[in-house]
């Protein structure tokens, strides 16, 4: 499926769902238990303090900003365990969120085509600084843990 480019397009629910479904699919592949997607909301500064590790992609083009997945370290360790991975070093945790970012990037490229220019996936401790005014948080529950997918984009020139 490829989104049709349109000069007057704004961010649509389907656009957000591309990222949501990318992550849900990732969890479905690596774990026996699916991640539960909870209602999305407009994010605030409080959300930025939640995640210990973040995998992100930066986007430019018709929209610009960033999309990232932030998760607590306990959730990531549990995920590694469920994959039979015994190494839980920080690098391994960053690799894991990097994998998620890579999934986000691949799906976004397929869906948005040339509407978005998507950077290579990046990882970091904590959450990145805000880049724009419009940020949407989509909480994901997996087992007892809560992770956040943040889509933070502004229209170019907005």
């Amino acid at each position: 499926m490829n989104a049709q480019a349109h000069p007057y397009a704004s961010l649509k629910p389907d656009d957000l769902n591309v990222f949501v479904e990318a992550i849900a699919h990732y969890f479905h592949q690596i774990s026996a238990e699916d991640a539960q997607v909870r209602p999305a909301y407009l994010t605030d500064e409080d959300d930025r303090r939640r995640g210990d590790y973040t995998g992100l992609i930066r986007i430019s083009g018709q929209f610009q900003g960033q999309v990232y997945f932030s998760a607590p370290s306990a959730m990531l360790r549990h995920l590694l365990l469920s994959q039979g991975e015994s190494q839980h070093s920080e690098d391994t945790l960053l690799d894991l969120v990097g994998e998620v970012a890579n999934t986000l990037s691949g799906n976004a490229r397929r869906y948005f085509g040339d509407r978005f220019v998507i950077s290579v996936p990046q990882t970091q401790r904590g959450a990145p600084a805000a880049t724009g005014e419009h940020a949407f948080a989509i909480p994901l529950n997996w087992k007892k843990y809560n992770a956040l997918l943040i889509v933070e984009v502004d229209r170019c020139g907005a």
Partner: protein
Amino acid sequence: MQSSASCLACMGKGVLTSRMGARRFFLHQFQINQENTVSLSLAKWIPGKYRQIVYAVAAFLLFDLGVLVLNFYTSYQISEDAVSINLAGRQRMLSQRMTKSLLAMQSDALAGEPQDAALEELRTTVALFDTSFRGFESGGEVKGGDGTPVPLVAVASPAGRAILAKARAVWDPYLAALQPVLRGDASWETRLPAAVAYGRANNVKLLGLMNDLTSHLEREASAKASRLRLIQTAGIALALLNFAFILVHFLRQLRESDQVIEAAQQETQEILATVKEGLFLLGPDLRIGTQVSASLPGILGERARPGTDFFEVLDERVPATALQAARDYARLLFGDRVKESLMGDLNPLSLMEMTQTNDRGEPQTHFLSIHFNQVRVGGRVSHLLVTVQDVSEQVRLERALAAADARTRSETEALLKVLTTDSASLLGFLDQARQTLLRINTTLKNHNSDERYDGLINGIFRQIHTLKGDAAMLGLDLFEAQAHEFERLLIALREQPDLRGNDLVAIPLKLDAFLDRLATVRDIAERLTSSRVQHTPAVLAGKRFAQLGKRIAADHGKAVELAVELDKLNALDPCAQTTVSEIAVQLLRNAVVHGIETPQQRTQLNKPAQGNVHIRLHAHDNGEFELCVRDDGSGLSPARIRETLLASGRYTVEQLDQWDHKQLIMRIFEPGFSTVTTGDRDAGHGVGLDVVKQKIARLGARLSIATRPERFTEFSIRFTVPA
């Protein structure tokens, strides 16, 4: 060639980068090909490029004809010269015969024999010699060897004339001496010896001169023959050279011309293979020409092939009347006097909508633009160049632009209307709306994963509906419309079975857009605040209710007289003012939409066409306030409410049977209850009275309802406010 050169120049300038350029180029190429074809068929008129070859062939024939004429002339000359030479030779013989005859006469005279035979021969010989001599001098007819007269040309050369002059000098005395003998005078016998003596003396001389004449004529003839051969050889050589020129020059020219035609055809093929438009020529029989662009079948379908009737190809896609009009239009364009530029507007196919199935068998709407251009050859229309373009994307973009333009205009008008609202009320609304939206966002954020989503949706719906009511009360169409859009999203979600978390992602997008607009309007409104006149809450509420009542009545085809008495509103605290106003808005909406009948229905019921709605806030002596909203409409119908509840599937017949009318009527405050089947911005979502119930609870008020079918409905809300 010139045309092709200019074509190449066109390509060099990048004319082909535009679609129209490609079409013009194709037309140009076609005209070149037509020109070549036509030139061949009109060769007899010797057009410019063939003039040279015709001249060269004519020259070749001229040279050949010249040589032929020369041959005739030469043979004539040779024949003439042969006569002269023969006669000159005969003169030699005649000079000797004259002498012989004279001597024979003298011998016969001495022997006493008759001399008649010799005399006759002498006469003949002298006459022939003299006639021939004059012929050589002046030309004329002379008796030939066989006795028939032959033309003798006078000797013209000076050397010949000199020989003749010398011979004349010998001949004249000789002839004078012979005359008495030839005439047979009486004394001829006495004259004979003198003639014989002159003959003997000059015989050899005359013979020599005649011999010289013969030799001279032979040399002259030989020289003339040599000269003629030379001229003949030159003529043949020129003819051969000319032939060689024709072969070399014109074969090269033909080869070059063929290469140009080939290159032009190659370019045409490349254009036809590359161009995105469907291009082809339409003949007077309205059939597609032999060359079509590769994209044509893709645009018009596989039937669009060379030789097929173009309008039959369109048959399944274009309505019959439009197709006939298009056929007539094309036929009209074939008229030589018809100006294409004046006909463009009449083209019924300039933009047509058609449905085609794609590879997956799904129907897809396309917009095609078909244009016809006359192709003239020699001033006559030989073909129509047809250009078929798929302009779907262009049309969609134009429509999107028009829609965006209309939306922008509508929003600008709405924004201007917003800015004319009382600034304090507007700012109050903006604050309150923002708080509502942020509250909704907090609800979303704090939503417990164990809770059902329909409860969440209903909660949001109530808040948005209230927001819509507030916007409507203030006449803020811009926000009312936005809230209505939000409601539509929530309705769609509410009706969706098995809601999941990611189905709700549209909600924060709506929140974000709403908050954005609130911020924008607030920014503008704040700048205008200082210049506004402030009104009391009661005055403002009165105005807003009047506006809202008028708008809802107009939207639903009702005629309503609204009476508002809200003076006591000023006595309430701002929070209670807001809550009372919100309740009144919902009840007003309910009264106009559900209560008041249409003017026709009212007339049939013997009621005034115009309905009445009365909103009144009354302060009782015991400190209680009472908000009454009364309409003289159809009243509440327990039967209809029962029917709606049964249809909703929420209650069984047994449950409904247990309730009395009062209990049934109170069910109208349940979320999702509505007696109308289609929702609009004022009713049909089953949330208005649910909001009223929530607000009444917030006020700690008591509700009572009085109603009588076809007469009236009155909602009465009694409450107290803290001292």
